[in-house]
């Protein structure tokens, strides 16, 4: 039997896909969403921009047919708050990242590992992690994280505009 398919999402295009992950109501956990919203008008015609609010496990669905994906999410790795990390799917450090909040049992690193195990990673995946400080209930970013959001916006835009079509220098090990 064939796997159920969906007609709700827009059809995949050749454009790179930027996915902001987070929860608007958990303090700094909204940082990934803020980046996606700021990038949407700036990257019009250059990239698709999606928001993932259903927990990191939702990524496996959103990037299903995409080839080149940049994910931006709040993370907690112990670095100073507002630090912007850039990792590729094969980086071991990724699995060490705990999600900023507990969402459905899977962190960002775990979602990437699960996708790798199932063979459904995008061909090229880069993760931007913004170190969170406060993920209590409530709306609003810590000032250091707000600066991290600005940095991530600039770096992702530069990354996509400097070489919008080229492959990343390294590939995911699963596809090597």
């Amino acid at each position, binding site marked *: 039997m064939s796997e*159920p*398919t969906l007609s709700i999402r827009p059809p995949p295009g050749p454009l790179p896909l930027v996915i902001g992950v987070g929860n608007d109501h958990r303090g700094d956990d909204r940082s990934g969403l803020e980046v996606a919203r700021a990038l949407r008008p700036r990257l019009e015609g250059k990239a698709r921009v999606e928001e993932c609010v259903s927990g990191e*496990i939702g990524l496996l669905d959103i990037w299903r047919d995409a080839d080149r994906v940049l994910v931006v999410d709040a993370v907690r790795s112990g670095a100073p708050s507002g630090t912007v990390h850039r990792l590729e799917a094969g980086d071991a450090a990724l699995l060490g990242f705990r999600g900023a909040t*507990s969402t459905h*049992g899977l962190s960002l690193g*775990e979602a990437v590992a*699960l996708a790798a195990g*199932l063979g459904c990673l995008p061909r090229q995946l880069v993760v931007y992690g913004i170190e969170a400080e406060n993920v209590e209930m409530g709306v609003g970013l810590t000032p250091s994280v707000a600066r991290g959001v600005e940095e991530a916006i600039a770096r992702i835009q530069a990354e996509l505009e400097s070489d919008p079509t080229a492959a990343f220098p390294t590939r995911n090990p699963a596809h090597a």
Partner: protein
Amino acid sequence: MTERTIHVDYLARVEGEGALKVRIRDNRVEEVQLKIFEPPRFFEAFLRGRSYLEAPDITARICGICPVAYQMSSCHAMERALGMKVDGPIRELRRLLYCGEWIESHVLHVYLLHAPDFLGYPDAIQMAKDYPEAVQHGLALKKVGNSLMTLLGGREIHPINVRIGGFYRAPTVEELRAFRPELEGALPLAEEMVHFAADLDFPDIEEDYEFVSLRPEKEYPMNEGDVVSNRGVKVPQDRWEDVFEEVQVPHSNALQSVRKGAGSYLVGPLSRYALNRDHLTPRADQLARSVGLPDIVRNPYKSIVVRGIETVYAIEEALRLIEHYHRPERSWVEPPPVTKTVTGAATTEAPRGILFHRYRIGAGGLIEDAKIVAPTSQNQKRIEDDLWHLVERSLALDEATLTDACERAIRNHDPCISCATHFLQLDLERQ
């Protein structure tokens, strides 16, 4: 004298954050505490002074897994307060939306959170290496549930289309019919999930539960029916507080619920199934029989099979609702003006069990008081009882094995600890 203490500081594969403390002295269990240290929730206080129309959207934020439950309980409570009657296609659409939430929540738990316990894996990532098909099926099925929520709710998490009185927009017949192939494709996957679950090895344990759920006259419970139990409780769903009460315990931010004069009780799939098995569809009923599920399941580990049966039911029910759907002329019933203080309460069946909401609305429509009792806080004391019995049976186990066993026993009930925390009244705690 020997004393053993087991601490589990972080409970994996449980939504939210919780911890467990067990104290054993001279080979006797002295204390079992399921702790909840997620930041206290201010939702009940936050709702005061807001328009009653905002309650479905605000309370949906309490949980990323069961937002529909919060929307449904708040809508029904407000509508009861205002004497509104919502039926026909709008009622059916609400049921359809709930089907989507049950599917996505149950499938997530069965394949990704619970199955690793039975198959000996620390998590779904490790399990996926040996059981890629099971995990793929889980993701595909979960997606069908999420898509149904998107179709009706506008988006999958925190649906934005639900309002007091109905929906901002009702889907067309064509829109719903176009979704049938997804559901038809999901049905065999869900049946396979039941067989997958039923073939797992289960500890041979039964607990003497007081099962509590809604029980409507003619259907498996979601939005309607009285609150009933297998020990004689039967009250209208807005009278939950006549029978149950919340008590504060020092070790948890969440309030624990008990039946007045009795004690702990269980809500969720085992209870719905025990009290409403006769309302299953023939196909779900037959499937339950074919995998040897008794009419009442007292083995908490077998909740994984019952979640599978409920998933099959929800898919079949969704197909039935779509088949009979007629688009309503108006997608919502207009609420009357609020001219005096009114109170209303409702209980609906979240995937994890009954969710109670009560509101007092002042003249003009601002919320004056809110009370929300989540299924996990209702189950918390019962989970501690399960753990107590488990530890008593398992004193010979070494520390690590016993700790794992305790974590498994907690996950049997799919606790959503994010939902269960309330604002703790500090002045009361000092007494």
